[in-house]
């Protein structure tokens, strides 16, 4: 029996009131509800406030560079598909610096869970606009307001037919931890975009702002319809749907790779006979 205690309790470097606290809690609950042992999980994170999260629970962890957690996770999963790999980082990490890796991860459909703490701001570097910041959002770096259209990760992932696209909210930890469980259990690439207040730098998209708008999808919502999902994915402003928005069952990448059929790479030894034959080919 895996319990919350297995995942420990740590002091964090986050501001009091920050949405990250609730997300951390939801993650731990999801791991416990999935009965995953800490030693079987690998967290991979980038750099930012969100990316510190896996330091505050017990698990294997590779805390790499800003924006580059998806490729690290991809490599680790390919090396050892037995690992449950969860990527956790901010909106800046995944939709800004790491945007190209998000596109590729969706296309690969490798079995990773990506948890994006989306506070619509660069928190750790003190409040510049992030790719998800709303149009007109004013910061020190955007004194005339944000002029780029916000990146809608749910819409893009759905348009790309990612195999699991969900949106959660740090203020609804029950649903959130359920979404995270589902994402971890999903075979293939699972994106959970998690809306989260940053009390220090985002004075627009506050807890109350989200609370008012974030509404769980109705029970009867069918996430397997791409057409419906494409509509729901664009909802924002006054009503922000949260829940599992789109899902399909494309085969996951690592299952398709011939070389992985013989078991995890890390267990192989060099096949000397075959190597000899390859060499013979050069005669």
């Amino acid at each position, binding site marked *: 029996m895996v319990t919350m205690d297995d995942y420990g309790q740590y002091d964090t470097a986050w501001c009091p009131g920050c949405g990250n606290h609730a997300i951390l809690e939801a993650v731990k609950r999801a791991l416990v509800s999935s009965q995953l042992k*800490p*030693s*079987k999980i*690998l967290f*991979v994170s980038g*750099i930012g406030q969100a990316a*510190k999260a896996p*330091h505050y629970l*017990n*698990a*294997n*962890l*590779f*805390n*790499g*560079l800003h924006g*580059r957690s*998806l*490729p*690290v*996770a*991809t*490599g*680790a*999963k*390919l*090396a*050892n598909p*037995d*690992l449950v790999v969860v990527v956790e980082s901010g909106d800046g990490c995944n939709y800004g610096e790491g945007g*190209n*890796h998000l*596109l*590729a991860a969706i296309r690969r459909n490798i079995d990773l869970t990506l948890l994006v703490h989306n506070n619509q701001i660069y928190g750790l570097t003190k409040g510049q606009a992030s790719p998800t910041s709303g149009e007109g959002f004013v910061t020190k770096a955007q004194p005339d307001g944000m002029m780029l259209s916000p990146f809608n990760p749910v819409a893009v992932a759905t348009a790309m037919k990612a195999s699991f696209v969900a949106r959660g909210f740090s203020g609804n930890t029950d649903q959130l931890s359920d979404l995270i469980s589902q994402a971890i259990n999903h075979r293939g690439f699972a994106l959970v975009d998690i809306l989260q207040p940053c009390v220090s730098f985002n004075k627009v998209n506050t807890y109350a702002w989200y609370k008012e708008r974030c509404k769980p999808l109705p029970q009867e919502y069918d996430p397997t319809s791409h057409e419906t999902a494409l509509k729901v994915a664009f909802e924002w402003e006054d009503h922000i749907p949260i829940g599992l928005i789109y899902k399909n069952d494309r085969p996951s990448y690592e299952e398709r*790779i*011939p*070389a*992985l059929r*013989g078991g995890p*790479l*890390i267990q*192989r*030894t*060099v*096949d*000397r006979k*075959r*190597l*000899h034959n*390859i*060499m013979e080919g*050069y*005669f």
Partner: protein
Amino acid sequence: MEKESLNILIGGEAGGGLVTIGQILAKSLVRKGYSILVTQDYQSRIRGGHNTFGIRVGIEKILAPKESIDLLIALNEETVWLHKEELSHGGRVIVDGAYCIGDIVCVEVPFSQLADKRYVNTAALGVACSLLGLDEILVATALKDYIGKKITEVVETNLDVLSKAYRWGGDQSPSVSIKLKPVSKPEKRLMINGNEAIALGAFSAGVKFCAFYPMTPATSIVMYLIAHAKGMGIVVEQAEDEIAAINMAIGASFAGASSMLATSGGGFALMTEGVSLAAMTETPIVIVVAQRPGPATGLPTRTEQGDLEFVLHSGHGEFPRAVFAPGSIEECFDLTRRAFELSERYQGPVFLLTDQYLADSYRAVDTFDIKNLPQFGPSDVAKVSDTPYNRYQITESGISPRLLPGLTQHLVVADSDEHTGDGHITENLSVRKQMVEKRLRKGRGILEEVIPPERSGEARPDLLIVSWGSSRGAVQEAASMLRGEGLSVSILHFSQVWPLQPSQFLNTLHEAREVVCVEGNATGQFSRLIGREIGFQIPKRVLRYDGLPITPEYIRLQIKKIGTRGK
């Protein structure tokens, strides 16, 4: 008269089949027991332009390419005009009658009678092989091995054309032929180029994962890995960009799969942040940087040794590393293995610095020794008790016990931030200091294991040539030439260019009356490095930076130009 050695050059357009016949001819020669050395010169395009495939062949080991051509196989007119000045005394040209020029010796082949346009290359091959005195069966077999497994009709037509060409060749007066002296005891040898040898070396070292984004001249290393990936049980992943590639490799290695990367300057530039990450997280990783002329896109298909300093200082912050620079096909194999060994032992980035010339250069080599396959890898390193596991435990050697995530009950934590022994982020500044020192201490071990430079020639020479990497053979041959001219010349050649252990060669430098450094770049990067590391300045340099490989004759002429104080 039969020749001891010959320099053959095939020239024509890209897509005109010159690489095909070059490969077949070279393979036939190797199977006959000759030594060869292939130099490929091509443009950054798929069709058209002017490309060459040069084969230097001989009974003795061939060390380097050569300028003067004994047999020019011209697949188009342009080739004749571009290379006629390079013909040696007695050199001749196999060419369509229409393209022969007055002042050169032509074997005027009526190609249109021998073959359809698409098979002119095979006809030229046939004529050349017949003049060289190679048995048709040998060449036909090589041809089948090269293109055979694909479409039989094409193979048959090729064989037909080959036969016709042989017959035509046989009908020519014997004075036209340029036979090679036969090899007395032919040995079975591989015909293999630098990039293939690197791939084989990696396989034998137990590579498990490679991520890449295509970039000339490194791509072919990866293509060889891919060709055997399924069989050898490795994964080769085409990444969305080079940044992804290095981060994937780091992730795979962290999880326990020995990983490598192969790229060239511009792609490597994008990896430099990752190099620093590998160092900080102490993750083994082998990076092959196949150099080509820069800056920026430069000359994508030519050669240079211009990225030594860049690779040596790549990545922000301070950490130890090792840099190998193979000088032969054999070294491509051996040093790749060595790179894996060191990167696993010292848990960090290790580099292999090669270049387009070596990458594409086929040679005849003895089979590699794969009986003894060392199984390095993380499992050896970990001797961890049940006490809390500290991935980054402070040790005397700087090497910490390495476990793999998911395989034991221990949690493995790595962090790009400064961290405590258990891998978690810290801002404790005295821990920081200890961790810096721990990481740097690994450099001492690397230094102790450094491969000494190869010294050849007499002690206290008048002239000592210092060189590194791919110019090894050219320097050796240049030294022989100069010795032949009465100069006392020795060589100090580096196959590992970092770190440097002065005690291994400082005396050699001091004892020489004069020292010249040979490099394929414009600023003398290696000479400067020696100056920095051991305070011995080498202002006399033979440099080349026009995109072509360094040849013996080039070195000889430049040394004459610089002037030596030798007797």
